[in-house]
């Protein structure tokens, strides 16, 4: 449906896990929405089974700058994140692991206590609040190992991973939960184990808002999806309520869409950037920023990979990339020397990406050895909770502008000592795991450009502690919402997509109710 630009509409910025889900849930309830997506409308058949070609096709490549002591400032100074700019957002290249948060991960501050340098805070919601929405998200996404969904079979990389897990005493390993079909489900086919996830799934077996929420929202006849439209400002009226968004189309023409409600879901770099770029005399520090927390507490999960070599073939690239999850280390056990927990998950890169990400900057015989062992290599990813820090922060870099003349976001990041201790523990356990099944050598790869970007518009009970309330509604502006991983108060150990979707389903109920009762 076409919504007039002068009609005060419900406007959603972004079409990924948060925005795409919110759009579907609202249109399903009979509420028309405008979705403004910065990227193009790529379809599954457009995807390419080649790492760099797909990267250039899908990735968010607009210029960004970086600062801080993280290694990204050296290796990929203009590529702090590895996310997607297209309809469906980053759900079109995610791997698919869907663990739920644990109860105490919503209460990080009162569980872990005061951690020096960390800006920990309890969420204003509990796991009990979110559990019904986790159920609905798992059913929507078809998470394996839940609600009767079959597990995926063991692929080669998983065989090494799971056998190693068993031998070092881990119990809680499985091929999921993982939101890719092991058998036909929800009108989409079973995985053909083609090994391409980060490049988009041509087979539509993997859940994304591109294959589920967006087409279903279109089917309601209430969605006005505008791709290649990048929102550059949210405007407000004299009373301080959001009243429109300004956006650029692919030719750089500026448009205005009137709005009665704006929900921002641009991922945790662009969301705070948009709020900061919308500063006015009434809101000189940016919209919804009376707390000063917009852009702060940026989290990226504590990650790292271990690639181990064996004397026999593994062929890790065959099959679902991340259909292997070990949860044993996801518990909170401060005896390990850090608070919070982490998962170990299978991961595989092709030679092109392995060469770029295994040890950026490396060359020579040691580097060649990593590559030469490709056939016999197994890989896993450490992913755990990182500490929110106020100084880990998205700001506007007014010295560098994008092609539209707008300030690019700068991403400043330093590891917290807790992050470093956790990563080292993860590396050690991973090597122990692989050694137990005969690894002849291992390589520790540093964190990739961030795929999980969280926390820059965090939820808080009190307006002075954060940007949005428990519904994702900004404390300062009653008709402005945030609907993506930016709202995470703390990061938890789990991959974030399931939680973003659950929060968006919950938020949709609230928004629909508020629209009906005149609460907005």
């Amino acid at each position, binding site marked *: 449906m076409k919504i007039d630009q002068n009609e005060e509409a419900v406007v959603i910025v972004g079409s990924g896990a948060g925005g795409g889900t919110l759009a579907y849930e609202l249109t399903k309830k009979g509420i028309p929405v405008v979705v403004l997506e910065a990227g193009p409308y790529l379809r599954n058949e457009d995807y390419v089974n080649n790492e760099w070609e797909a990267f250039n096709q899908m990735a968010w490549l607009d210029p960004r700058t970086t600062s801080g002591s993280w290694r990204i400032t050296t290796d990929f100074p203009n590529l702090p994140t590895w996310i997607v700019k297209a309809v469906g957002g980053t759900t079109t290249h995610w791997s698919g692991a869907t663990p739920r948060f644990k109860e105490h991960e919503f209460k990080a501050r009162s569980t872990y206590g005061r951690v020096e340098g960390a800006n920990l805070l309890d969420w204003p919601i509990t796991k009990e609040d979110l559990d019904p929405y986790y159920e609905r998200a798992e059913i929507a996404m078809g998470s394996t190992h839940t609600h009767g969904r079959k597990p995926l079979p063991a692929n080669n990389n998983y065989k090494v991973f799971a056998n190693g897990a068993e031998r070092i005493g881990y*119990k809680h390993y499985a091929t999921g939960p993982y939101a890719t079909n092991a058998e036909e489900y929800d009108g989409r086919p079973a995985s053909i184990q083609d090994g391409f996830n980060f490049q988009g799934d041509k087979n539509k077996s993997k859940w994304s808002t591109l294959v589920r929420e967006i087409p279903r929202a279109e089917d309601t006849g209430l969605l006005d999806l505008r791709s290649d439209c990048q929102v550059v400002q949210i405007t407000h009226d004299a009373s301080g309520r959001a009243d429109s968004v300004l956006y650029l189309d692919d030719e750089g023409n500026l448009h205005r869409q009137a709005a009665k409600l704006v929900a921002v879901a641009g991922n945790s770099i662009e969301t705070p950037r948009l709020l900061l770029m919308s500063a006015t005399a009434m809101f000189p520090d940016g919209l919804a920023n009376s707390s000063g927390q917009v852009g702060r507490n940026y989290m990226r999960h504590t990650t790292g990979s271990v690639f181990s070599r064996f004397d026999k073939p593994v062929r890790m690239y065959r099959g679902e990339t991340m259909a292997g999850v070990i949860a044993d280390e996801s518990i909170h056990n401060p005896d390990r020397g850090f608070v919070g927990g982490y998962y170990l998950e299978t991961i595989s890169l092709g030679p092109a990406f392995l060469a770029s990400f295994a040890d950026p900057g490396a060359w020579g015989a040691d580097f060649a050895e990593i590559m030469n062992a490709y056939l016999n290599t197994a890989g896993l990813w450490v992913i755990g909770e990182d500490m929110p820090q106020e100084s880990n922060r998205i700001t506007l870099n007014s010295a560098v502008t994008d092609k539209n003349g707008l300030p690019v976001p700068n991403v400043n990041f330093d590891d917290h000592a807790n992050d470093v201790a956790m990563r080292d523990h993860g590396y050690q356990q991973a090597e122990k795991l692989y050694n137990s099944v005969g690894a002849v050598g291992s390589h520790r790869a540093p964190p990739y450009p961030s795929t999980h970007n969280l926390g820059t518009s965090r939820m808080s009970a009190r307006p002075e502690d954060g940007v949005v309330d428990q519904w994702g509604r900004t404390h300062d502006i009653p008709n402005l919402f945030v609907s993506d991983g930016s709202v995470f108060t703390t990061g938890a150990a789990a991959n974030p997509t399931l939680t973003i979707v659950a929060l968006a389903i919950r938020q949709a109920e609230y928004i629909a109710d508020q629209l009906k009762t005149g609460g907005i």
Partner: protein
Amino acid sequence: MTFPAKYPQLNEMELTDDAHDVLIRLLRVAFPHPDFPDGPYERTATRILNEARESTWFRVALTQGILTLGQLAGGDFRNLDDDAATSVLRRIEATAFFGFIRRTTVLNLYDDPEVWEVLGYEGPSFDKGGYINRGFNDLDWLPEPRIELYDGEPLPDIAPNAVLASTGKSPTGGQQTDTSNQPGSQETVMRKVSK
């Protein structure tokens, strides 16, 4: 494009066959894969030269870098054995010249189907039906692992001995700890926020 005409030798190096040969030798030393055929190295060298043609700065860096290689080699870089050539590259690895070559090589050499074949990577698979019937699970040197969730004792969220900040007690009701020097458990620790 502007040319550094002040230094005629730079223009003379206008990407000759010589430069191509020196680059191939450099790539073989820096990215030593004895099993790789010549094709991928030649294509990568060509790619580097093409990219240098696009950018004055890279062209200058490349031209000067190749001259430097000769100087450090005390003649022709191509005449050095592997160890001596590696030493020369270690001396220049921090230069823009080497960084440009390394980046371009990493992006292109390993994205070459001939290299994939040597490494044992099969490239695009969707058009072949994926690996569901082509060996996604053909690893046979380890036992078949469990794929279901563990059906024994559930995983606790928190280790039994961990002390919780909110209560000062462990989940199993362990000892009270002294928290008198800590702020209240639910209070956020805020510093002054500079805007």
